[in-house]
Every structure is written in C-alpha cells, then in structure tokens.
C-alpha cells in the first residue's frame, strides 16, 4: 500500500507513471491505480488496494455465527442482501438444516430485487464516468423504490441483515406482494428508458465497443466470474448450475455477450435486470404458506467440519468457506470476494487502450471496495 511512485519526468521520458489516487471521482471508492503510460496509451496498470481493509475474516473468528451475520452486509454494501443470503445458506448447510420453502421464496425475491438495485447503481455510476450525467439520477430514482421495499421489510435500506440462519426472522409485511408487484410493473419501462438514452447512442457505442476486451479463456484463467465472465461468452450462472434458494423452481435465462467488451458487459447487466424482474414476478405469485424459520438450536454449535458454499451475487461468485471447530464461534471464515478477483483482470483489459478507457474499464468490472478489501 505504501509503494513509492517514481517521480514523473514527463517531458523527457518515454514512459510516464500516473497515479489515479485513492481519492478520485471515478475509482468507485478508495482504489489506487498506478498507470504506466506512453503518451496516452496504457502500458500497464497496478492496483493498490487495502484502504478499506477491516479484517472481517479475523473478526469472524471472534464472534458467534449469529453475531457475525451483520458483518457480511458491510463487505459488498451495495448488494448486502446477497451477502447475507450466501452466509446464511453456508451456515445452514453446516448445521444440516434447510430453510423452509416460504423463506426460500422470500429470500429469492429480496435477493433479486437487490441484484436489480446493485445493477442500477452500477449503471448510474458507469454512465457518469463516461460523461452521461443524467442516467445516474434516473437509476437512483428507481433504486429508491427498491430500498423502500427493503426498509418496509427489515427496517434498513442498505445494510439490511434481512435473513437469519435457518430462514427469516420477519414475516412479510402487509402489502409486500402488492408493493413488489407494483414495482415489477413500474420498472421494465424504465429499463427501456435507459436503453433509449444509451444503447443506441453513437457516442456511447464508440466509448464502449471494443474497449476492455476479455476473451473467454482468459477470463476463466483469471478466475473471473459473474457478468464479466458471461459477457465473454461463457454461459454459466450459479443460479442454474448449482441452484440454491428457490431458483430451481423458477424460469429465467442467462444473458451472455459475444465479445467480452465493455458494451457486452453493459448489455448483459441490462438483460439481467430484466430477467430479475421475471424471476420476481414468478416468485411473488408462488410464495407458499408455511413457517419462515427452520428448527435451529438457539446456541449454534455446528459439528466439526467445513463447508464451501457459493451463490451468484450481482458481482460474481460469492463464496463462503467456513470451518467449524464445534464451538459457538467459527474457526475460520473465508469470503471469496468476486470483486477482488475480477479486479485482477483490470491489467489485462487495459493494455493498449487510452487513459480515458481505464475509467470505463474500472467501471465496467463493477467493483465495490468494501468487498475488494473486506
């Protein structure tokens, strides 16, 4: 983190080193990127991270399983509900319990709404980086509707701690289905509005097509997952490959992109928003009656063992590797952070592009520094 940057001798050297410092309008948090440039062309990048490192994995070893649950929201704070889902499901597997069907459906609905809100935030900030100032305000307006649903359900908008180990704590409130259905009707024209502003826009196409190409084999080699991998042409989604929550019973498609450039990642995420609405529509009609909490002991002491469970978070594969020593506190919790691993591909994607494209590429990977650094 304290790497010394060589002084820029920009007038007489072939190579300039420019620092996009931790405080920068476009690095989406405290990310420091050191660029080696030849004029305007990027020769290489180096990311310096860790400004937001809070030692979440160490904290986990000193909290009980239930006490640790709110901490996972704070990692990818934009998609807190997904983080909570992954953690709760991992511990449920370790305890060998299964959440009841009603809980699984409500979890699916909230997680998909969270996926939409995460993608909306991504879209607004990505467009803002590329100079289109207006979509940010529109996407945040839509995001408000989703955050209202979260607030009505669990009292919090951003770091929700919506789920509990074994199911849900709160029953759905009166009017939950109506509000979700109203959102499902309100939202699809808005996606069309964003597409009208951006997808056909010649300037947008020129800024995003052919920029930051990541081929499929490179992506798999770099352990990239999520929309970035799907835009490179690999049709793989954990919701279909290893279904969890209620996804096995719902019908949806996995969008992929042909080339793996910024435009494809944009199109994949737009289509994912539409598919999420489709999932929510189906799920909200099918919520079964029943208990919302499985039988879990008050004091959770999973047997000695380990588990690796991963879900498809909006950013990629979010995995939890939990080792239990039979006590009330986990022995080791490892969070597999999709943003951290996707960020490795930044160097590969930036080679040969211009400085202005670096901003576009950082935006298109969709990083949240809370997850990169944990």
């Amino acid at each position, binding site marked *: *983190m304290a790497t010394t940057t060589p002084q820029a001798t920009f007038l007489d050297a072939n190579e300039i080193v420019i620092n996009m410092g931790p405080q920068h309008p476009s690095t989406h948090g405290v990310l420091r990127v050191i660029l080696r440039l030849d004029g305007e062309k990027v020769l290489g990048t180096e990311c310096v991270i860790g400004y937001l490192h809070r030692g979440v994995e*160490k904290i986990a070893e000193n909290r009980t399983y239930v006490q640790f649950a709110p901490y996972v929201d704070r990692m990818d704070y934009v998609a807190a509900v997904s983080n909570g889902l992954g953690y709760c499901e991992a511990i449920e597997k370790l305890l060998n319990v299964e959440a009841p069907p009603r809980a699984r459906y409500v979890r699916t609905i909230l997680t998909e709404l969270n996926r939409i809100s995460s993608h909306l935030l991504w879209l607004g900030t990505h467009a803002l980086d590329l100079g289109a100032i207006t979509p940010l305000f529109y996407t945040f307006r839509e995001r408000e509707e989703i955050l209202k649903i979260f607030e009505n359900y669990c009292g919090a908008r951003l770091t929700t701690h919506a789920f509990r180990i074994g199911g849900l704590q709160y029953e759905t409130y009166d009017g939950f289905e109506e509000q979700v259905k109203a959102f499902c009707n309100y939202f699809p024209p808005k996606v069309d509005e964003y597409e009208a502003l951006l997808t056909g826009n010649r300037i947008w196409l020129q800024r995003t097509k052919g920029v930051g190409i990541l081929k499929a084999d490179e992506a798999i080699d770099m352990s990239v997952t999520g929309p970035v991998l799907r835009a490179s042409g690999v049709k793989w989604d954990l919701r279909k490959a*290893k279904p969890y929550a209620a996804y096995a019973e719902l019908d949806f498609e996995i969008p992929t992109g042909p080339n793996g450039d910024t435009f494809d990642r944009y199109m994949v995420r737009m289509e994912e928003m539409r598919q999420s609405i489709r999932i929510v529509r189906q799920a909200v009609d099918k919520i079964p009656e029943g208990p919302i909490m499985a039988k879990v002991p008050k004091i959770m002491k999973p047997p*000695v063992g380990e588990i690796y469970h991963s879900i498809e978070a909006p950013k990629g594969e979010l*995995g939890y*590797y939990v080792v239990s020593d039979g006590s009330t506190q986990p022995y080791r919790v490892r969070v597999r952070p999709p943003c951290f691993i996707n960020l490795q591909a930044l160097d590969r994607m930036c080679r040969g592009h211009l400085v202005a494209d670096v901003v576009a590429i950082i935006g298109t990977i969709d990083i949240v520094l809370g997850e990169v650094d944990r």
Partner: protein
Amino acid sequence: MPEEKPPEPPKPGESPAAPAAPGAKPAPEAKPHLEKPAVAAPTGPVGAPWSGEIVETLKSTFPDIAIQPFAYLTQNYLLLPRESIVPVAMFLKTELHFTLLADLTAADYPKKEKRFEVIYQLYSFSRNERLRLKVPVGEQESIESVVPVWSGADWMEREVFDMFGIRFEHHPNLKRILLPDEWEGHPLRKDYSILQQDERWVRENLHIESGQ
C-alpha cells in the same frame, strides 16, 4: 441439501483431537456473553473417504504421491503433499477439466504438526463439479505457486502471504496486498493478537499505555 448426519469415524492421516487449552488467544477476561466452551482445540475438519473416477485417475497418474480423498457433507476434497501441488493441479486443469480456480485460501491449525493448510477450491464447467484440494504446509516451509496453472491465483496467493505468511515459490510478485508494505505480522494466524497490535500502536503513536 444432505439430510443424513455426517459420519464421524477417525480418519487415517488425521491425528485424533487432543484436548488442550484454546490456541494462543489471551485467556477470556470477563466477557460473559462470549462463552468459550471447553471443547478440544481443532486439528482440522473430519471427513469420510470417497472414491470415484477422479481419485482413480489421479492415483494411477501419480502413483507415488500420497493423495487422500475425503468428503464432508458431500463436498469432496483431497489432501495432497506439499511438493505435488503443481503437477497435480496442472493435471486436474488440463486432463480433468477443472479449469476454474474458484478460491485459494489458507487456514491455521497451530496444534497440527504442519500448522497451515492451503486450500484450493476448483470447479469444472464440463462436469459441473467442485473439488477442494488441501495442502498442509509447515511454518517455515514454502509452497510452489500455481500461477503458471491458473493466473487468477496471483492476487489470491498474495493475500494468503499477507494474512498468513506462507511463501509461494516462483510467484511473479509476492508482496503484501491488503496491508501496508511495512506491516509486521500476519493477522490471520491464531497467535496474532489484535489486543497486542492495538497496544503496540497506541504505545508507538500516542505514547501512552492502552488501558484495555
């Protein structure tokens, strides 16, 4: 979701859990809500052996490497010796199509003879199957880097080095990634005390004794 209880017989290769005082954590001081039960300090998770095509192929390709297959809650893993990681990994990637290195991490079991365990989570698209590799590494030992096999291991290994102090041979750029370069100590080790870290910082920067 598996419904059956996991089997519990002692495994070959795993020493039985010896009752001992909890790691090197400071003795719990008046924290009534955090009840540390008198349970054995762990020497690692236990699992039942499994066999299958992958194990057979591996055993036949690497007859002189002690590969021990286990499974816990239907998740399969292999215990491998330290020296064999790169050949086995390369074989798994190229021949058995485990092309995605989903995660690379480590865990610290100070009671064990080789205290660290480097854990690789692999995934195969064509088989839609996960596999875990666990490699015990001793305190002063180093392990070969798998960056030549999966280049995504780059930052993951740097993080393991940062948090545990395990050195990876032939890694392109092994230096700390999340903590400042001049940080001393490796936080995720069990003998790294946050309290001591805090006391040291307060002493160095505020020149008083931390009252904790």
